[in-house]
């Protein structure tokens, strides 16, 4: 058997692929964070809680209304997105004129409240959510046994990330958005309703988190703490990629998934820390992040 660094090659390829799968979640979550930070200047600590809400809404749709996985993949982000819009309109929009720290504290508090409410209502061990029947089973790739559902996660995450990037970078709507971030009064003078644009951007960022939540529901236990486990890593991803950089967060998300996956093979005890080690190195050498623009 071929060996690479003392590890059998098939095992290593398997780990690479698994790293990409986890990276898909990091990419989707950090993408939402990057958009929200880029457009609203809010460090959205509630992102993990809203990711968890996405999974719970999918679970609730199935159990209370008998609505299956694929409709939930559209409906749950919409529902949670609307919730995000309400949050933005009623609470978060009051903080735009203040320092970043206030937004961070507020959203951190919001996430504690949301998670606490779900914990009270549903307990902490989580709810079962089955993999949809068309995506059950697995494919033998030769070097590993690949569950079809995981393949679906990587594909749909990649498509959604690329589509989001294309909308922001390549369409006129995206151009307006980017212009509004640079100079809101000027864009407003052209007749664009900037506050509404910002609200919808927040809603869209939240919808991305909820979409990731629905994708995660069949893999992880749908429980109130599922977001907290991700959110710290995802913030590190955003910092490494460069705050507010769309492409940066996507690429870094996938890349760090792979780095973490490799660590799990060579020194598993460090797998929770390795992302932060990378973050420290990047901050020391390139303080703006890998893809950050010079101010």
């Amino acid at each position, binding site marked *: 058997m071929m060996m690479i660094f003392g590890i*059998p090659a*098939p*095992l290593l390829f*398997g*780990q690479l692929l*698994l*790293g990409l*799968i*986890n990276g898909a979640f990091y990419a989707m979550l950090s993408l939402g964070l990057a958009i929200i930070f880029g457009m609203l200047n809010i460090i959205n600590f509630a992102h993990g809680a809203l990711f968890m809400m996405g999974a719970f809404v999918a679970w609730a749709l199935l159990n209370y209304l008998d609505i299956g996985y694929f409709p939930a993949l559209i409906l749950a982000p919409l529902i949670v997105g609307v919730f995000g819009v309400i949050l933005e309109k009623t609470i978060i929009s009051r903080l735009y004129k203040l320092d970043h720290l206030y937004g961070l504290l507020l959203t951190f508090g919001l996430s504690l409240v949301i998670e*606490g409410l779900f*914990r009270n209502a549903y*307990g*902490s*061990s*989580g*709810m*079962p959510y*089955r*993999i949809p029947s068309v995506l059950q089973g*697995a494919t033998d790739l030769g070097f*590993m*046994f690949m*569950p079809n*559902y*995981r393949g679906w996660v990587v594909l749909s995450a990649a498509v959604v990330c690329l589509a989001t990037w294309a909308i922001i970078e390549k369409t006129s709507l995206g151009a307006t958005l980017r212009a509004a971030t640079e100079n809101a009064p000027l864009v407003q003078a052209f007749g664009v309703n900037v506050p509404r644009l910002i609200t919808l951007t927040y809603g869209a960022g939240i919808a991305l988190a909820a979409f990731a939540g629905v994708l995660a529901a069949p*893999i*992880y*236990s749908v*429980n109130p*703490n*599922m977001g907290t*486990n*991700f959110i710290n890593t995802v913030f590190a991803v955003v910092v490494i990629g460069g705050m507010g950089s769309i492409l940066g967060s996507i690429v870094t998300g996938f890349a760090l998934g792979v780095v973490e*996956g490799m660590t*799990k*093979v060579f020194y*598993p*005890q*460090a*797998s*929770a*820390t390795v992302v932060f080690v990378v973050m420290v190195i990047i901050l020391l050498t390139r303080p703006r992040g890998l893809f950050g623009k010079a101010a």
Partner: protein
Amino acid sequence: MTLNRRTLIAAAAAATVPAMARAQAQPVLRIGCLTDMSGPYKDLAGPGAINAIHQALEEFGASAKGMKVEVLSADHLNKPDVGATVVRQWIDRDNVDVIVEVANSGVALAVAGIAKEKNKVYLNTGAATSDLSGSACNANTIHWVYDTFMLAKSTGGAMVKAGGDSWFFITADYAFGKALQRDTTEFVESAGGKVMGSVAYPFPGTTDFSSYLIQAQASGAKVLGMSNAGTDTINTIKQAKEFGITKKMRLAGLLLFLTDIHSLGLDVAQGIVLSDTFYWDMNDRARAFSNRYSPKNGGARPTMVQAGVYSSISHYLKTANAMGVAQAKADGAATIAAMKKMSTDDDCFGPGSIRADGRKLHPAYLWEVKSPAESKGAWDYYKPLATTPGDQAFRPLDKGACPLIKS
């Protein structure tokens, strides 16, 4: 609020009331339930454990017997330093006499040290590490429900007997996971099996186990030993099924609780072999207890940890009532010694006893999770495979290296 003379007087008066009450009235027993109220062990212990204390108080008839008991509770957040701080405050400031529950071995070991230092009563029902009645044992601690040795012997022994002679461990990287792996390894190896490898993952905070599962599969071992608990085990099992591991390896749930199976659902969990010392449907007395417990807990059936809280507090109340509340408050070690002298009996664990090293003895049961077709409804999850009598289920007294036992 501006401070005027009237509020100042009111505040001063209010402040003196509790002190006066304390000075005049009979002694009040204070039970502190230190548990996981928000993390991975909330459902298997948590609020259900606090309710179990109240149930024990009610059914013992504490107030009818003239005993005054107060129950406090706190969340240890699965952090030993947080748990230790809470317990010190409870003892130094709030006059707490009994610490109960403490799911999480790391926190449990920290609390054992404090209980000894302050001479209080410590009844652990939730933690697994067998060190609590081994190298870390003391005269103030009773380890009530189960431990890593018993789990390893019951589940590990049974798996090796059934042909699972090569193992791979996925282990939570802290006191509990390591103790469980150590104790199971001993059993597997002494039964002629071998351990092909293991991986220790960071706890808490790990949700994706696929990488470790692939490593487990590559090892070629026949049995996957899961040295973890709560949501970690749930995620491990879910993902093992997803990656087709269950077709090639047998899963040994070294520590699985009823609530974990409830969360997994029977279609994922069916066929898993696990050990418990209490199952709500195991006999008439256990059913009777559970039927009294469930209505106050949203219909959920009690786990062995929650049953253990009921059982240990019931025995403590019996002892305190017999020796007098004032004496029970004054000397924790003497109370524990009295508890050890008295044989135990309650609806959850039946007749049993407490050994000199603080190990509570009762039978251990090996269960298999039912298939959806076998289950008659909600919470009907286990079918019995084997029973180990109480005197054989736990580590022999002379093997634990407990300093209380002079060899």
